[in-house]
């Protein structure tokens, strides 16, 4: 099992750690960990395309949260535009639907992670944390369906930031 899967498993463990009255610390760490699970899944998938395995960890450090947000917003918009054309059912629509799910889960979990890590005024409930973890789990499943698709790899590259124009 890979690191990202371990993080996701840990997120669920933390959300269910206390049988009754979950501690805020457990729920906040659960939310934050769910985001990092998806963050590391996408980065590890992106760096797998780098031929030199010994440099992948270094390459992974070039990914930035803000740029990944921008790329995910763009991806979500592109998916929405395609879906709104009401295309016929088929592999292309399936791929776009899965990619949309991944991009949306990334955006949602990233914002939640920021609140969980930095906003002490916000109190969390268990269902709230579990809903987010479930969303990230669905994103993992969707990713595994499309991980070899060209559109998925274009998304991975875009997570590094905008290419220079001209």
């Amino acid at each position, binding site marked *: 099992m890979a690191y990202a899967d371990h993080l996701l498993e840990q997120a669920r463990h933390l959300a269910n750690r206390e049988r009754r009255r979950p501690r805020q610390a457990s729920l906040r760490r659960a939310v934050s960990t769910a985001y990092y699970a998806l963050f590391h899944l996408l980065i590890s998938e992106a760096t797998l395309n780098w031929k030199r395995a010994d440099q992948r960890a270094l390459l992974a450090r070039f990914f930035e949260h803000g740029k990944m947000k921008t790329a995910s917003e763009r991806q979500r918009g592109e998916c929405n535009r395609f879906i709104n054309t009401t295309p016929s059912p088929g592999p292309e629509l399936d791929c776009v639907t899965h990619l949309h799910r991944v991009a949306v889960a990334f955006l949602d979990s990233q914002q*939640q992670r920021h609140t969980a890590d930095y906003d002490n005024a916000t109190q969390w409930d*268990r269902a*709230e944390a579990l809903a987010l973890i479930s969303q990230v789990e669905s994103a993992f499943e969707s990713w595994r369906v499309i991980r070899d698709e060209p559109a998925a790899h274009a998304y991975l590259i875009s997570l590094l930031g905008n290419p220079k124009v001209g």
Partner: protein
Amino acid sequence: MIASVRVNEAQIAASVQRAQAALAPDVVRIRYSFADDWTGDPSIFFRVVLTDEAFHRGRPSEMAERVSTTVRSEVDPDQFGLHSYFNYRIVSELAERPEPSWA
């Protein structure tokens, strides 16, 4: 209202009501507020109260996807230049620890 975007609050309120009606009885109520997200982008934050039964019926992600798709379709936050985010709570947990912003 957030300063950096102009939103039609009456239009949004009406569309949220439509979404809530479409999602009943699984969705008990939907509340929302405007604020910037972590990168400073103007956003709308939806707080969705679900019945316990709806939350536990299947995978929470399926319910969440159904809710967010319906709400985004009705409200269309993109037309106002708003990002949209969703939080979900269930009736029994809110009863134990009520919060005015979710009432």
